[in-house]
Each structure stands twice: as structure tokens, then as C-alpha cells.
């Protein structure tokens, strides 16, 4: 796959279709695969990486990249295309300035899950018949492949590319995922249990802003948390109220726009399952206003900024909150 992608990128650079390529390169460790922009065949040959650890969604980078001179090639996994489509819908990217090559998606690996098995010093991995062979500085280790995949891949919603110029490999289908199972479990808890669950999770927050920085829906020119006039700028999570509200406000801001790409939970250094907040919104929107998948298309009206006569009454929404 990596080689096919490099060849495709070189060809598009050579024929002048694009003048840059956004892909990934290795970070400090084998599992730190980081988005990067390449401008020449040589750079591609020496640094371009696409492997089982390559899970970062590059859509958000395109907000800035597409405003530069020339056209950029982007390799998008199915989940990434939903993010990109949503950005088109919100006029945050210039579609013509991006050449999209759709690539097959995950499942991708979660280095944390491998480390949790006590495996350290990871140098590389190989998937052999769904047994993960891990090359470490201390020798080879193995574990079942599916025990090492990212949570967001375990509840994958779609293998379909919703926007692309060309594809490498075959396009997939929208999947029947179990992504709302955990939300349902939380809904069935008592208010106190639910509060305790979230307090335990959110109290871990160190307010590093990684979730916001990675979120493809968080592309405001000036984030409310960076705005000195907002009164909530760069506050440390000094108390439990701050800890809770930061994430709840963020979930509200992306409600109806979040495509459920799962990047927030993936990058959280404290392993807070932030995607559950977003999924709660998605689930509620589906049940109150009809099935809606953000990013599925660029023209439909989003339920939260559309009104029609079949919309449920506000009182119904209100009553749902009553225990």
C-alpha cells in the first residue's frame, strides 16, 4: 500500500496535478506516525510512511493547506473523507485546491494497548494472519491483532469514501456499527452513577487542548478558549466545574457537525473517552430529528440548523432530561 501511494504521489507531482502531498512520516518512535507535507519525489521516497500505526486524520490540515499556492494531494481514509466533506459543507476548505486519493481504512493499531500488555521498546509491527508480531528492542513479542486496534476502529461506522478524485483499491460500504452501545449503557445508569463515571473520567483532564487541536470540526478562526474577551480563555482546570464544562462546551460546539472520526479520544494523553459525549449528541439527533450523518454529503440541511414542521416539540427534548 505504502509503495502504491508513493508511486501515485510521485506521478501526480510529476505531471503537475499537484505541487504538494500531505501524508505522514515517522516521529520519534515507530508508532508516532505524524502528518507531514512533502514537496518532492525524494522526500516521499525517504520519509513517507503508511502503516498500521498511521491513523491520524489529515483533513483538518487541509483548512490551511488548501489556501496556499497550488494544489495539494491528500490521502484520505474513509473516516477522513467524512471530516473533509463536512469542512466543504462549512466552506472551510476549497475543494478545487485538494486532489483526494481515497485509500482503504483501518483497523489501525493503538500503541497504548500494546504497551498495556507490558510490551515496550516497540520497533515495528507485522500483522500475520491477525496475529500481531511486534519487533521490540528486547526481541519479538506477539499478541492477537484485534486486541491492539484503536477503539474508534473497533466501532467503525463506514468503509465508504464520501469524497474523492480517485481511489487506490476498492470502495467499501457503510457499516452497521455498535458505536452507540456504550452511550446506551451510560443512558441506563442513574444520574449519580453517570455523574460519577464522568467525574472519574474528566477529573483526569490536564487541559492540554489536544482534543480540540486535532478535532476537524474545531476550525474556528478564533477559538472561544483562546479568546481573551470570552472570559474563559486558557483557563486551567482549576476546579471540577472547569474540568466538566470544557468538554461539555466543546461537545456542544461540534454537535451536529461532528462526524464521529474519534480523533479526540485517540489523541487524549489521559485516555478520556471523549467521543462518548459526541456520540450522545449524534444518537439524540438521530432519535429526535431522524438519522443524520454529518459529512455524508455537502448539501443537506443539518438538523440543528434546520427547522421543519415535523421537528419534535421542545417539550419532548425537555422531558427526556427528567429522571
Amino acid at each position: 500500500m505504502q509503495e502504491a501511494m508513493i508511486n501515485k504521489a510521485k506521478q501526480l507531482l510529476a505531471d503537475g496535478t499537484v505541487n504538494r502531498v500531505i501524508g505522514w512520516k515517522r516521529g520519534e518512535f515507530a508508532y508516532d506516525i505524524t502528518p507531514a507535507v512533502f514537496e518532492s519525489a525524494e522526500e516521499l521516497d525517504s520519509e513517507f510512511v503508511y502503516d498500521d500505526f498511521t491513523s491520524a486524520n489529515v483533513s483538518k490540515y487541509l483548512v490551511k493547506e488548501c489556501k496556499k499556492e497550488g494544489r495539494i494531494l491528500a490521502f484520505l481514509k474513509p473516516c477522513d473523507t467524512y471530516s473533509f466533506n463536512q469542512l466543504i459543507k462549512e466552506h472551510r476548505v476549497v475543494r478545487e485546491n485538494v486532489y483526494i486519493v481515497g485509500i482503504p481504512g483501518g483497523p489501525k493499531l493503538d500503541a497504548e494497548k500494546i504497551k498495556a500488555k507490558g510490551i515496550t521498546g516497540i520497533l515495528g509491527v507485522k500483522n500475520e494472519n491477525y496475529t500481531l508480531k511486534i519487533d521490540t528492542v528486547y526481541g519479538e513479542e506477539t499478541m492477537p491483532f484485534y486486541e491492539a486496534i484503536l477503539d474508534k476502529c473497533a466501532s467503525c461506522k463506514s468503509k465508504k469514501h464520501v469524497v474523492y478524485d480517485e481511489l487506490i483499491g476498492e470502495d467499501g460500504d457503510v457499516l452497521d456499527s455498535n458505536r452507540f452501545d456504550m452511550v446506551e449503557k451510560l443512558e441506563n445508569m442513574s444520574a449519580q452513577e453517570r455523574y460519577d463515571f464522568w467525574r472519574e473520567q474528566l477529573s483526569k483532564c490536564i487541559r492540554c487542548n489536544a482534543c480540540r487541536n486535532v478535532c476537524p470540526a474545531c476550525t474556528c478562526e478564533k477559538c472561544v478558549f483562546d479568546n481573551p474577551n470570552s472570559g474563559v480563555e486558557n483557563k486551567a482546570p482549576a476546579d471540577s466545574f472547569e474540568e466538566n464544562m470544557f468538554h461539555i462546551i466543546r461537545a456542544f460546539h461540534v454537535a451536529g457537525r461532528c462526524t464521529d472520526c474519534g480523533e479526540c479520544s485517540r489523541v487524549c494523553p489521559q485516555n478520556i473517552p471523549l467521543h462518548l459525549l459526541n456520540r450522545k449528541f449524534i444518537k439524540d439527533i438521530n432519535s429526535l430529528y431522524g438519522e443524520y450523518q454529518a459529512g455524508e454529503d455537502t448539501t443537506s440541511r443539518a438538523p440543528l440548523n434546520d427547522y421543519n414542521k415535523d421537528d419534535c416539540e421542545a417539550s419532548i427534548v425537555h422531558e427526556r432530561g427528567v429522571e
Partner: protein
Amino acid sequence: MQRIGVFVCHCGTNIAATVDVKTVAETLGHEPGVVISQDYQYMCSESGQNLVKNAIKEHNLTGVVVCSCSPRMHENTFRKAAAAAGLNPYLVEIANIREQCSWIHKDIATATEKAVILGKAAVAKVHLNAPLTAGESPVAKRALVIGGGIAGIQTALDIAEAGFDVDIVEKNPTIGGKMAQIDKTFPTLDCAACILTPKMVEASQNEHITIHSFSEVTDVKGFVGNFTVTIKKKARYVDETKCTGCGLCTEKCPMKKVPNEFNMGLDNRSAIYIPFAQAVPKVATIDPNYCMMMKTGKCGACSKVCSVGAIDYKQQDKFIEQKYGAIVVATGFNPINLDKYDEFAYNQCPDVVTSLELERLMNAAGPNGGTLLRPSDKTHPHKIVFVQCVGSRCDDSKGKPYCSKICCMYTAKHAMLIREKYPDTEVYVFYIDVRTPGKNFDEFYRRAVEQYNVHYIKGMVGKVTPRSDGKIDVQASDLLANEQLHIDADMVVLAAAIEPDKTARPLATMLTTQMDTNDFFTEAHPKLRPVESATAGIFLSGACQGPKDIPETVAQASAAAAKAIGLLVKNSITCNPCVAHSDELMCNGCSSCEKVCPYGAITYIDKEFRMPDRTTALRRVASVNPAVCQGCGACTVACPSGAMDLNGFSNSQIMAEVDAICK
């Protein structure tokens, strides 16, 4: 530093009986920035206003808080007073301590505490108020009347008389409405058609009036003075401009078994039809549900006989868009459906009819040419029972809680007409109360009882049972004589309650006007603004606002016209300066605000910006047209980046109020 004045009104005892106004004034006097805090018996009176004006001058106030009634009542009064004293009127805030406090609380301590909190919130807000200047927006010199019954026709004629163009949109193929179906009118017994049809003709001939018959309003955008309305002209499969109304097609049409709506289904019409002889416009309409050509492709008789070639089986619905300054709603009423009233056997016996059906049975243009005959066997009825309040004044879920108002009078009219024309007929009227307030109304009713010997019996009919011999057994109670009655009637006439037309509710949504629980349009004030809706530029005419007889409907129709004319004569109206604006440096250009804006006030522009890194970038940002924005605030909520804000109700002002309340 702000210098704020607080003025607490007693409103006689309206506020002062439940709120300790002295304590409120005293407590608010200690709020930051407050330099003077007073109470007064009637702040809206001349001397009360002078108190405010003098304080503004004396203390050089930068903001005013009036703790009084709802801002809907007197905000304008105090804004004008402030302006007269040289203070920008938008630096005045009202704390509603009457409707939202004294009127809903009984305990003085609680009410006083709440009044203080509401006052503190207003003080917190006024700290952040900025002076605003109102702009102006032009008025489209054209009115739209929705509904072409007597109410709509009268309103249109009056507006046209003042020289303004007016369009009538009528959903049926002809204007005329319910009045066209009525035989005679109370209390003068003149013929309804004789007084209505000249008005219909006048409307069609008036150069200022355009009639869109067989049409519906499908979309309304904009605001007072600047409505943009989409009208669907439904396909009638006949070219209106060519049809001469000769009626040859209706004679030749082989499909003659279509229930005739105009005669309440008591006889049949052809598939291509003109509702009645005096229809306006007198143009044929094809009913596609019955036309053989439309259903099977075989026939075409009408097309063959039409000498002007007006028939067009392929006609499509047409949409037209028009700008209006004012909209008058005149959607009228219908009798309720009587399916739920099994006890009156309406669905079992053809000789049990509604009053509107009786109108058609007695009308010269009706199914029997004006002779009153039983629908079942076409014989003369000799005993007729009228049942009042069928579905009116009901406390169960079957009927309506209100009085339909017109039934007592039309029943007296029916009884009188029958006794006059057929003196051998006995007429019984069962009533709960006879309600006849109105000029010459009670005299009319008494004439029915005293001169025409109509048997008025106080009591309700319990059961109506059709018998095999063709008679109808009416079981009823006479409450005054305290006895049960059995009457073997030939006909039973039910005074069905009236309800607003079904099209009214979706229309109310389009117009963003309010309705009551019975789907009657709500007037802006039940006493002082009876023909205006709470939405500026939308007026109410006729029975869409509540049950009404013809004289009242016409009076209200003219009143609505006067209000519409009052708006149309203005070249421009003062805009509300409390409009939205976008902070371009924060705007993402995502289009959320544009999507929620009900007025189409938001557009996007590509604008060049100096970026922090000293480059310039072209960015898509929202731009609000202040002349179109109505300040509803939907965009400020939808904006994900917080770039949208509303003058006079800014996010920071609202937060300051909330903080003051929660402190």
C-alpha cells in the same frame, strides 16, 4: 463610570400590593453604578415620566432602569421620555416586576425578593448597553389578502379604494367563500347572493385587485413592509386567460357523478365545472380525480367543444413570487365534522342535515331549485326539529369549548323562513340558551317565536333515531316543563359548531403568527388591537380570528384594511436597531447563520484581511443586512464561533443578567 437611575413603579396596587416597592428602590440604590433610585405611584403617567426626565438631566444619567410592567406595554413610553431628556432611548432597560412578578406571586416577601433580583439583572445589563440608532426600510406598496370570502373581498376592496394594489389568494376555483353558499341573511332576510355577488364582480373589475383563484400561499419570507410570498397557482387544466365561462364543456362532460362541493354534496356536478353561476373568475376547472381524460386518456369531450381552445390537460402548477408590504389573513371557517355525533344519526339518515346543507336545500340555485324537500324521498317535510349547539359550548373532547355565535340567529332565520313559505310545517328549536345580542337581533328572534309560532324548547336533544316508516324519532327533554319529549320529525337540522379552516395552522407557521388552542388567530391585544396579529404587518380579517356573523366580519375586514392602508401609505418604516452583526475577525464563513435566518438577512462576502503573520488572506465572512434583520437572535445561537452578536441583547449582556440573577 456609569451613572444609572432606577425607577420603581407601584402601578397603583398592581405591583405595590404584592411587592414592597420601597424596599426594592432602596436595595437597588446600593447596586454598583446606581446614583438615584426612586419609587412612584404611576411611572408611566406624565408626572412619572417627568421624574425620569428630570433625573436624567439632574444626575447626568448614562442608563435608566424602570421596574414596572412588561416592556411590551411601556418600553416605548420610557424610551421616548429618555430621548426627550437627551439620553439615547436604547440606554433604557425595563425590569418586568408586574406580569413576571407581582401578578403571579401572593407572598410579599417572595415577590419583593424576586423584584429585587429582576432589578439587579436589569442594572447589570444596562451597564453594558450601547447607544443605538434606528435605520429605515422601505415599504412595498402592495397588500396580500389570503382568503377570498366576504372578509377577504371587503378588505381587498377597501385597500384598493385607497389606491394600493392588492392580491387575493383563494384556494377554491372561485371567490365568494361561505357567504356565497348562504340563502338569506339575518336580520333583514335579504338574499346573500344579491348583496355578495356585486362585491365579487367589483373585486374582479377593480384595476388594483388581482385575484389568484385556485391558488395557495406556499412560502412567506421577510418582515413588515417587505414580505416575499410564493403563491402556488394550482393547475386547473383550463387556460384562465382564454376561457370565457360559456359552460359548454360542463354540459358536454360525460362524467356527471361528482359530488358537488358547492351544494354540500347534495347533488352532483361534472368533472369539468364552474362552481356556481356567479363564480368569479367565471372559468372552468377540471377535477383530475374524476376526469376520464386525465385518468384513462380517453374522452377529451371538453377539449373538442371548447371554441377558444382553453383546455390544457398537461397544465402544471405554477409558482409566482411577489413582494408585499402588508398581509391580511382571511381564511374563514368551516362547520365541524359530525362523525363523532352518533346520537344525532347524521351519518345514518340523509334527512338529518347541517344548517349549511339546509341553506343549499332552500336556495333557488340549490339541488331542489329552492323548494324545501327531504333529501331521502324528495317529499315536503311537515315537522322539522332544529338542534342547537351541536359541538359548541362542549366540555368534552368531541366538540369546541366556545360558542359558535352565529347559530342562534341563523336558526331563527331558518325557522322563520320555513314557517313563512310552508305554514303547514311545524318547527321545533331545541336550545341551551338563545343568544341574540346585536342590532335588531333579539327583535328578530322574538318575531320567530311570537309571529311565526316557532316552538322554542329549552333542552337538549338526547337521541335521534331514524324509523323504518321514514319518520325520525327525536327524543329530547323540555327543561322548563321538566318532561321528556318524543317528536316524530320529518327532518332534523343540526347547528354544527364552526371551526377555523384547516389551512390556517400551516399558514400561521409560515407567517410566524400566533394561534389559540382552537386554531383561531390571536390578535395583538384582545381589546385594543383586535385586527392586528402580534407579528408586525400581518392583519386579521373575519372568522379566522373568532366566530363572527356577516356584519361583524365586514366591519372587521374594513378595520383590517384601514390598518393595512396605514402601513402602506408610509414610504418607510423605522427599523429595529437591535439587529445582529458579525465580528468578521471571528467569523468562519460556515453558513450556519445564513441557514437559520428566517429573513434572508445574511449574505457572505469574500473579504481581504491582514493576518497576524502580516500576510493578507481572502476570507469568506458573514454580512448582515441591518434593514432586513429583525433581531430574532437565531444566528447568534447557531454561530459556532461566537462571531454573531445582537445589538441590545449581546451575549455579554445576557451573561451579565444571568450572573446577576444567579449571584
